[in-house]
Each structure stands twice: as C-alpha cells, then as structure tokens.
C-alpha cells in the first residue's frame, strides 16, 4: 500500500477527516483498549463494525480497509496456530487493525506527529517528521538504483551470490547518499534559522467533529460491559 494513497484518503472531505487528530488519537486509543481487554465475542464483533461504519461514512473504500487489515489477519493466524484460541486471536488482531485505520487513513502523518508533541520527549516529534520526509527521498533514490541494477542485469534469481553482491554495492551507495543528504539538510536548516527545534504551529484539540471518534471510543468501551 503506497503511502501516497493513505495521504490522499486523509485529505478527503469526510467526517473523520474533519475531526481533530487529538480527538481521533483519544478515540482510537479507547477503541484499541476495548479490543485488547475484550474477553467475549460481542465486543470483538461490535467494535470493528462500529469503526468500519465510520470509515464508510468518511468516504473510504471498505474493501481496501479489509485489505489493509489482511496483514494483521495473516500474522495473527500464524500466531494462533501455536497459541491456540484461533477465533479470538484473529478477531482481536483484525479488529484492532480496523480501529487503528480510523486514525491512520484519515489523518496526514505530519499531523499525527504534531499532535503527539506534548506527549513525546523533546526531539521525538521533529525526528519523526524528518524521518518521514527522508523516507520518501531515499525510497525514490532506491527505486532508481534498483531499476538501473535490473536493467543492467544485476538482479538474477539464478545467480544469488552475484545479485547479493550487486544489492550490497547499491545499498552502500544509498548509505553514502543518505549521509551526504543529511549534511546538506542540516546546512539548509541552519541557513533558515534552525536552533534545535523545528517550529510547528499548535493544532486545535477539539472541533465540532471531535464527538465522532470520541463517541465511538466511548461506545467501544461500553461494548465491553455486554
């Protein structure tokens, strides 16, 4: 799943997208807690359905949501093979993933980092933002290197040693590139007045759509009582 797709979904004009990141973090936190603490089947079915309905209301493709939760389903199924209690484990994992999606696909990632600023220690939100930005730069560079390697016959399934050697060499180039870019970025930040903290504006904690994720979170917890 391309991050660009997630970012595009986060910018749609749906009710969850309009809610503040802080309220969504709280609501999803309550929803995840109810999934983690659930011992019966009712909350494990009710909570994911509740959040799925919010995702559908927010104009998100539900089939793709299940696709995104498929990763959680797969690994929980593997774990359940050894741990037992297959149905509960798989429902917990898949349900938890669907709840978490309510935050991850409706909020741009930089907004999530910004909202966590009060809760995270000093350089963490800035470090997250820089890492996120650097990821796109390096991924783009790696795709070019890999394509060049393939076009020149450097990747061959029947020649694993040669392929490994070529991949290692290309990664070495990427590492040197990353270090050079980090120095250049730091120089650019200094020129623009960087003094150890990236200035970020305060996001509002609540707005008139905040009731939606918070209400869903509270209902999720009430589902535990059944």
């Amino acid at each position: 799943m391309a991050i660009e797709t997630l970012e595009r979904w986060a910018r749609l004009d749906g009710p969850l997208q309009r809610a503040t990141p802080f309220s969504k973090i709280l609501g999803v936190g309550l929803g995840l807690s109810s999934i983690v603490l659930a011992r019966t089947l009712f909350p494990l079915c009710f909570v994911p359905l509740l959040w799925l309905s919010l995702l559908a209301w927010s104009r998100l493709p539900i089939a793709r949501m299940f696709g995104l939760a498929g990763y959680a389903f797969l690994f929980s199924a593997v774990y359940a093979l050894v741990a037992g209690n297959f149905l509960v484990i798989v429902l917990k994992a898949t349900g938890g993933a669907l709840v978490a999606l309510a935050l991850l696909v409706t909020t741009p990632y930089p907004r999530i980092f910004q909202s966590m600023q009060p809760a995270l220690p000093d350089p963490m939100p800035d470090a997250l933002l820089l890492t996120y930005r650097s990821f796109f730069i390096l991924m783009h560079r790696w795709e070019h290197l890999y394509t060049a390697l393939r076009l020149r016959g450097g990747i061959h399934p029947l020649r694993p040693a040669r392929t490994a050697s070529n991949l290692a060499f290309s990664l070495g180039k990427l590492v040197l590139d990353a270090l050079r870019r980090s120095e250049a970025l730091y120089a650019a930040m200094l020129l623009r007045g960087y003094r150890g903290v990236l200035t970020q504006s305060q996001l509002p904690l609540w707005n008139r759509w905040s009731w939606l994720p918070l209400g869903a979170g509270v209902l999720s917890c009430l589902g535990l009582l059944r």
Partner: protein
Amino acid sequence: MSHLHLPDGILPVWLVLLGWVMALLALRSALRGARRFPERARLPRVGFVAALMVVAMSIELLIYHLNLSVLAGILLGPSLGFLAAFLVDFLLALLGHGGVTVIGLNACILGTEVVLGWMLFRVGKRHLPLPLAAWLATVLPLSASTGLMLMVLWLSGVSPEAFEARPLRAVVPLVLGLASLGWAFEGTVTASVVRSLCRTAPEVIGVSRGDRDA
C-alpha cells in the same frame, strides 16, 4: 528481520506494558546520551539513517527483510542508534507493519541489535579486519534478537510443545535456516558498506585516516 509482526490485542497486557516501560527507560537514557553530541550529529542524520532502515526493510531475500540496524549503530552510536530504532518501529506501526501496542517490545528488540552491534564492532575493529568485524558484529546480534523474539513468544504463553505439531515441526527449521542465510547476507551487506565508508569517509565509522592507512 527482527520485528514482531504481531498486531494489537494478541500479546498479554502485562508483556506489552513491560515492553513499553523498558523501551521508554532505554529511550530516556538514549536521549540523555544524545545531548552530549553536537547538534550537527543529531536530527537530520538520525532521520536519514532511520529512513534508510525503513527503506532497507523493503528489500527481501526470500522471507528475510534487511534492516541495517547494526549499521545504524555503527554510524550513529548507541544513543542516537537506539533513537533511530525507536523511530523506525514507531513509523512501521503507523504504516500498519505490526501493532501500535507492540512498539515498546519491537524497540527493545531492534535496539538490542543496534547497541550490541555497536559494541561488537567497537571491540572487533581493534583486533580484526574491518569487514570481518562488521560481519560478526551483524550476525551475532541478529541471532540474539531472534532469540529475544522467541522469548517474547514464550512469555506470551506459547509453549515449546506447540512447535512440535506436525506442520510446524517441518516449517520452523526451514524458517530458521532461511533466517540464518539472511543474517549472513545482512552481515555481508554491512561489511561491504563499512569497507566503502572506510575508503571514502572513515571518520563516519569511527576509524581515523591514520588507522585506515596503517
């Protein structure tokens, strides 16, 4: 790849909380250690090295994903390296690669590789050729972190007897065998990168130009 691919809601709550407590204590210690370094070495480099680790995780060799954790430890040191490991696990969880609640445990596992790798490389480079030191400093922590992951599974209540069920009895040795190939490959990649850096920018890996030329 030393990352618990477990979603939320599976592991016992006490184990998840323990992971978070340990990770946050280690993070606090790492941040204190990081403040000793000049500004220059901090955020942009940490960001790029953490991003490098995430990009490397997209590179697959059969079932094994690279992660370059030991290389991150060599490039950044233990404090900034652990910070990078935490950032990587945080970002992976936000990308849906594992649960949000298991970030703590994952940070402990990946952070162990970073710190152990840094320690082994620091000792090894004094006595061994640099590429060999880097190779050993990669393979040993990766196998140790696999042991840590198995310990997490055991603590979560999975009994060793469960692995003796017929399908798993065949699969587990195969997975471990492929994983050990992956460790060797990652060790080779790290050794190759260290060798390149030794020629072009030895100060980045803590080797002076005089030592390099000796």
